[in-house]
């Protein structure tokens, strides 16, 4: 297996195993996520992409009967330890889900949710952050006149961008995205893709996608997972032009998966 090592990765995953009950879902994953780059996880359905992603912000803690072994370092700090404060970890590592999940509240309240629960009360600061985050998510112009309306009245693509705005409002370092465009039409998808390229300047993005073109277009590095194992991990253009493994090539060219 090709190990692609970085000097100063923001995330370093070493020998990570994950189990749902007795079932081993991730097998000895070792992988570095580079800073301010877009890293894509690809692989056939059920291979463990989402599980791996959810390990990174310890979302899998919520799943009963699950177990994680191995090590994950964020800036050299261990994530996989019971002592870790998951609250502050999740503030540093935001997440955008496959199905957009705005809260049944106003657009405004959605954006500042993370700040509110962190105890920010200053109205002016909140207003500023709403504008900044919505602009960062390329949604400001569309919703600036309806901030006090329910977020559930937005279109699917707008909702997804609202979720991105919500994630960046707490000013994370890393944004995890699990198939953020799979429920969207091509136009909405391309807007999100542009946005991801924009986000890259300030954040590190880890994205799970089923769409090969999308991975090729927006990611700098690509990891190919298969049956819970990391098969190949390299620069995106190398993965897509000259993959080292036969399985990778087969998957990318659509011969299986």
């Amino acid at each position, binding site marked *: 297996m090709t190990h692609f090592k970085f000097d100063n990765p923001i995330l370093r995953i070493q020998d990570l195993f994950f189990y749902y009950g007795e079932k081993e879902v991730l097998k000895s994953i070792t992988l570095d996520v580079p800073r301010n780059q877009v890293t894509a996880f690809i692989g056939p359905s059920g291979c463990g992409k989402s599980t791996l992603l959810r390990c990174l912000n310890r*979302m899998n803690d919520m799943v009963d009967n699950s177990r994680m072994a191995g090590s994950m370092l964020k800036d050299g700090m261990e994530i996989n330890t019971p002592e870790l404060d998951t609250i*502050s970890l999740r*503030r540093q590592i935001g997440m955008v889900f496959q199905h957009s*999940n705005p809260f049944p509240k106003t657009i405004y309240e959605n954006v500042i949710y993370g700040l509110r*629960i962190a105890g920010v009360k200053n109205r002016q600061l909140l207003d500023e952050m709403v504008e900044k985050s919505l602009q960062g998510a390329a949604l400001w112009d569309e919703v600036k006149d309806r901030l006090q309306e329910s977020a559930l009245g937005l279109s*699917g693509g707008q909702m997804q961008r609202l979720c991105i705005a919500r994630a960046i409002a*707490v000013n994370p370092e890393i944004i995890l995205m699990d198939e953020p465009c799979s429920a969207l039409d091509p136009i909405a998808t391309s807007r999100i893709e542009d946005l991801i390229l924009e986000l890259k300047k300030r954040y590190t993005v880890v994205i799970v996608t089923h769409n090969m073109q999308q991975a090729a277009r927006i990611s700098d590095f690509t990891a190919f997972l298969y049956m819970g194992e990391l098969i190949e991990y390299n620069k995106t253009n190398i993965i897509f032009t000259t993959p080292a493994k036969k399985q990778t090539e087969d998957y990318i060219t659509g011969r299986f998966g």
Partner: protein
Amino acid sequence: MIPSKPNFRKQGEHYVWGTGAALALTLLAAFTLIVVIMVNGLGYFWPARLAHLALADGSFVMGELTEENIGPQGRRVQLKVGNRDIYGLDFKWVDGREITSLTYPDEAVTLERRENGNFYGTLSAIRVDGLGIQTGQDLFLTLQEARKLISRRMEDIDPVVKEMGRVNLEMEDIRLEIQKLRYQDAAGYAAEIQELDLLSAAKRKAFDQMNQRISDFRADLAAHTVTLADAAGTLKEVPLVQIMRAYRPNRMSLWEKSWLYIKKIGELLTGEPRESNTEGGLFPAIFGTMMMVMTMSFFSIPLGVVAAIYLSEYAKPGVLVRLVRVAVYNLAGVPSIVFGVFGLGFFIYGVGGAMDQLFFPERLPTPVFGTGGILWASLTMALMTVPVVIVSTEEAFAAIPKGIREGSYSLGATKFQTLLRILLPSATPGIITGFVLAMARAAGEVAPLMITGVVKLAPALPMDGEFPYLHLDRKFMHLGFHIYDVGFQSPNVEAAKPMVFVTTLLLLVLVVVLSLSAMVLRNRMRARYQTRAF
């Protein structure tokens, strides 16, 4: 070839018709019930005309025509002849063939009396000496004028009556204080007790004086009377103070009747019951029902919601939780009388009895809390409705998409913050649904109340201007029990019938109003949070 429509059976049309018919049937049943109640209940207050019948045997009857049907001997009519003190019965059947003439005499008068029901007859004399009214004009007008004067005079003694009530309460307080001191140390407190005894005697003297004054006053007023003749010519003298209302229904225009109708409904809603509940107002029962429902909600809503939160959010799923859930759901099906028995045994004898031992030992064996009261009835009802609240709250929580919780956690929210800021607001409409169901159930239930504190006639409301304003130990009246009492326990069933319908109607209205307001609230919340389903 144009594809033909799939045939009737394939489309399942016959099943659709079946479902439609089932719906129509339920609607029809509900609609009929409501119409029957409305017609019977609301008709009661309409000032009915007085029919004067001449019979073949030369006798006369007068009264309101209430019913007409074909009996075994042909057509017959029922009259409400009133005048209970003369005839003993309010209603009378008359054979249709016996009737030789039917008129609606203009001068027929209906008197609504404080006792013995209505009197129907014609005015023959009036005694109002000393009231300063000129006689000689139309007797009916004199009567109305005199009644106005007398009711104004009655108002003069209102303050005295109030003062008497206050003094009475003070005397009761003193009595209890003496009882307490005696219980604690009769010898040690001898001086104090004697002092209190003297005070009490003074109060009693004042009370008796006032009482005397009022009796004299009333006796004076009672000397003013009106004499009426019934259809047969029998004379009856009625003191004016006994008359609640007098009118000549056969002379009244539609407007006058409508106005009287509205006034009567107003009295029903605000007045006190009279004549062993078969007449007068329903205010204490309405108030008691509302207050019981509210006190019940005060206990059952928070308890149910908190329990549901624990069950669905915090308890580790497993056999035990499933067992608890099944048990709670089945609790909703336990017969209500069983809850009543439990309330009697646990709350009244257990908790109430213990409270009496602790706080009011000097009054034993007279119970304070160890007897039925609105608090215990509400708690019993709360116990009965808690499962409903739990079930609907749990359902509301289960309906919240998993993604929304994860979204909250992913932003660094704790479980508690997520619960408070996301889950509870989203579940509120569902919780309100549970609230509506619980209220409707509590308002309509009678059996458990009968043994936990409902009475036929409560001397005082469970809330009033006397400290401590909220008297949760008091017994109360309830519309549901009222229906049972008036309909099945009253000595004069025929006369009580309209009251049963009216009470039923009111109970229905109350439940509908309570439910509607909760639903409006729920829809407001829905509109605010959920403009789109997805």
